[in-house]
């Protein structure tokens, strides 16, 4: 068997799906379970080619329900297991991930968003935000990283395994078809070389010893007879989630100090938003840029602070307000208006954002002069 897949650091130019496969290797993932759906397929393609070389495993399942539930079996056996999906596959994936939430199982799922609803396009969207953050019949006790660049796809794939095994909440890397399919430069690295310690997995079932003789049996269920039994479990899980939300949540911002208008976006759209803000600031215009990296848990405290100070958020997203809904909940009671730039199912350019921001700025100046 070959040694480490990545020695030291290496500059590469590759597609996002290939980056994810390398990220999973760097994170020392053991096994992938998957079912074909565009635009995530190449994650499986690259993983299956690396399987023999690095002693990994792969199972192609009969559907995404099975891909999710086999991933659950893999983590319960004590292995770093993951899956990848998109669109209607992500819809099916919510059933197993609800169980992962119920049992606090450290699954890792990569989601490469495609157009919706239903099968729509295989290309791109940001329409799986509500589904990935709040999907299933639960309370959204999960972690969702929304990546913007290939470097982040690599960084957060590694981080997703650590977060999942450290906090024991199902964890998602939310990408999209653009990130999946385009090629971009990034640096692959051995996490140890950057001082990143990998959280080791542990068996939840089948640990050494005879149950009932050497140790109590490990028994997991997702069905309860009494309301009170369930309430007790939920109260504990919700308290655990809230206690760590602050340290899990991440964001990026610039120029928000004293800015009346803040452009807010996530994922690949945040690249256009960042560029637009930079261009306008180059002209001496005061404008902020804010991007949550974690959509669950959302950096709610920071959003509330900004919303209390800024006049308006220009919220840009490739869906019809799914991201805005999360922001509104976080900012509830704060004064900022949420002005939409929604392009459901299609990409957004920096030029469009700049044009919209100029309109808003000229209105507000007109408002001041009258």
């Amino acid at each position, binding site marked *: 068997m070959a040694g480490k897949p990545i020695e030291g650091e290496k500059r590469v130019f590759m597609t996002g799906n290939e980056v994810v496969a390398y990220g999973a290797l760097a994170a020392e993932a053991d096994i992938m379970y998957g079912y074909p759906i565009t635009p995530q397929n190449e994650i499986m393609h690259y993983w299956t080619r690396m399987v023999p070389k690095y002693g990994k495993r792969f199972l192609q399942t009969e559907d995404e329900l099975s891909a999710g539930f086999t991933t659950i079996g893999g983590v319960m056996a004590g292995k770093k297991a993951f899956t990848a999906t998109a669109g209607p596959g992500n819809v099916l994936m919510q059933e197993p991930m609800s169980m992962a939430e119920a049992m606090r199982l450290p699954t890792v799922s990569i989601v490469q968003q495609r157009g919706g609803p239903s099968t729509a396009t295989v290309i791109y969207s940001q329409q799986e935000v509500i589904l990935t953050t709040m999907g299933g019949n639960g309370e959204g006790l999960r972690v969702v990283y929304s990546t913007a660049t290939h470097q982040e796809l690599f960084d957060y794939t590694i981080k997703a395994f650590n977060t999942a095994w450290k906090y024991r909440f199902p964890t998602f890397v939310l990408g999209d078809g653009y990130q999946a399919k385009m090629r971009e430069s990034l640096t692959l690295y051995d996490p140890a070389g950057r001082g990143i310690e990998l959280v080791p997995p542990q068996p939840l079932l089948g640990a050494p010893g005879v149950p009932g003789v050497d140790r109590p*049996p490990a028994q997991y269920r997702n069905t309860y007879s009494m309301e009170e039994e369930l309430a007790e479990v939920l109260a504990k899980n919700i308290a655990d989630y809230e206690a760590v939300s602050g340290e899990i949540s991440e964001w990026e911002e610039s120029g928000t100090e004293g800015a009346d208008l803040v452009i807010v976006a996530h994922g690949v759209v945040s690249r256009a938003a960042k560029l637009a803000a930079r261009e306008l600031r180059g002209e001496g215009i005061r404008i902020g840029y804010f991007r949550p990296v974690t959509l669950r848990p959302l950096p709610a405290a920071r959003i509330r602070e900004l919303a209390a100070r800024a006049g308006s958020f220009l919220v840009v997203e490739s869906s019809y307000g799914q991201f805005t809904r999360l922001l509104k909940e976080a900012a509830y009671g704060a004064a900022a208006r949420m002005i939409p730039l929604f392009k459901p199912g299609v990409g957004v350019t920096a030029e469009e954002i700049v044009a919209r921001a100029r309109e808003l700025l000229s209105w507000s100046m007109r408002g001041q002069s009258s």
Partner: protein
Amino acid sequence: MVDEGAKLVNIQPVMPKCWRADTKPHRFCPGCGHGLVLKALGEAVDDLDIAGRVVFGADIGCSLLAWDLFNLDSVQTHHGRTVPVITGLKRANPDLIGICYMGDGGGYAIGAQHLVGSAARGEKITVILVNNTQYGMTGGQMAPTTMPGQKTETSPFGRDPATTGAPMQGPEMVASITGEGAYVARGTVFNVRQLKGFIKKALANQMAGRGYSFVEALSLCPTNWRTDAAATWNMVNEVMPRYFKVGELKVPGETGGR
């Protein structure tokens, strides 16, 4: 003089070693067949001395009530997903012995794709499917295994094969889509000794790494059948075998099965 009556009251039923005493009596309805199937399974686990390697997967419906019945590691899921959960576990750690315990609704209806997929791939797992001809936990609706003319809550005038099909032949289907190393049998709670033998062979087949192993157990549901003791036994001994043939369908090394 010894009070024979008092002595009898103090006699405890013999439980398999791998059962948990602290979760007894179990939670199944009086007269339910699950206890018999689970006793056969427990004795098979005892005989093979594999308690330290078994992971017991229970499904939803009445089978979920077995989640803490054994002194075995266990995971309870729903809708036939116990098959992919145990498949994923076995793939990740092939040293474990994976058991999927579920009903006819989970296995043949809502989770049928998992049964088909896992059987066709020849997963090295053991599936024990309890056939009591209807959905028990949800209150006695028609299942894929409901027999022609049988009254259920969703076939109140009797199942009509012309509009709702014939009883699902699970083991026959599994036998036809599995490879040579598969073990497939149909037992019955009417003959627990034979059923235990089938379950033991199914587990041994997994341990030998030969292939898929599948046992359907014909079982009882007097609650939803609304039958007394005599009619319940008649149902499993006389009526069900007209549609479900008891015996081994596929035994590795034996061509054509039995």
